[in-house]
């Protein structure tokens, strides 16, 4: 299977990258731009074929390594 882990900053955590992109888009003359936030996607190829088991494994990966839950949320998508 393939897992896609979406990692986003929690609301309330200032996102320097997003802010910088916002400013740059503004400089470039794009208007009507509201908030910009930047997140990560980590794609993982898995040997596991059982969806429930795969999800549990990826959950564990997120908690142990992929996301820093002090500042980040994560969402898992399997295919």
């Amino acid at each position, binding site marked *: 299977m393939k897992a896609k882990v979406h990692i986003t900053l929690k609301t309330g955590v200032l996102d320097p990258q997003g*802010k910088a992109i916002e400013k740059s888009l503004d400089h470039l003359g794009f208007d009507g731009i509201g908030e910009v936030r930047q997140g990560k996607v980590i794609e993982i190829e898995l040997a596991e074929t059982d969806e429930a088991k795969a999800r549990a494994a990826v959950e564990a990966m997120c908690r142990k*390594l992929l996301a*820093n839950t*002090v500042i980040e949320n994560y969402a898992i998508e399997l295919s």
Partner: protein
Amino acid sequence: MKSAIVVFPGTNRERDMAKALTLVGGTAPTMVWHGDADLPQGLDLVVLPGGFSYGDYLRSGAMGARSPVLDAVKRHAEAGGYVLGVCNGFQILAESGLLPGALMRNRDLRFICRDVHLRVETADSPFTQAYGAGEIVRVPVAHHDGNFFADEQTLMALEGEGRVAFRYCDERGLAAEETNPNGSRDNIAGILSANRRILGMMPHPENLVEPALGGTGGRPLFESITEALS
């Protein structure tokens, strides 16, 4: 004082740290490889030095915080041992939960290497006792991810318990937005654990301990630990 420096793949300021510890403290630290499950016996101080453990990939300090040696560092800390984390070491301490908060990308997104001024916020710690409270010192920073974040509650606890060790300021001690090099909340440059035996800080005291290098602002930190642990 018996000290050890943990070396992760990608660590690059371990020699700087060893030089400073040896120069000021008089004894050379032991180098511990990240894969080791145990720390040397009878250790007083563990140092997580600066650099780019695991290339700073994923998040700075994320992979270092999950390496086997960190379990030993945690045991050392739980037993009341002293831990110093500088720059990448601070990032690892935050990632491992030994210190609260997180270190995010610098506000201006650029790596910054330059001298900054710090206000010593508390002299009540084994790492800062040789400074005067409120003293202003000059030391360099060299980081890409030094933007300290913590939620309101954590910040209140840190402030309330006097656990903010250093704050970025100007040469007169003014801590304001203009004197904040990286966007850290409340200009925080370094914090202590609840038992005050763990210090994490972004600036590099080890790079300014001799007049030949341009200053000695980092020296009292090493004098403090040496005295506390002798």
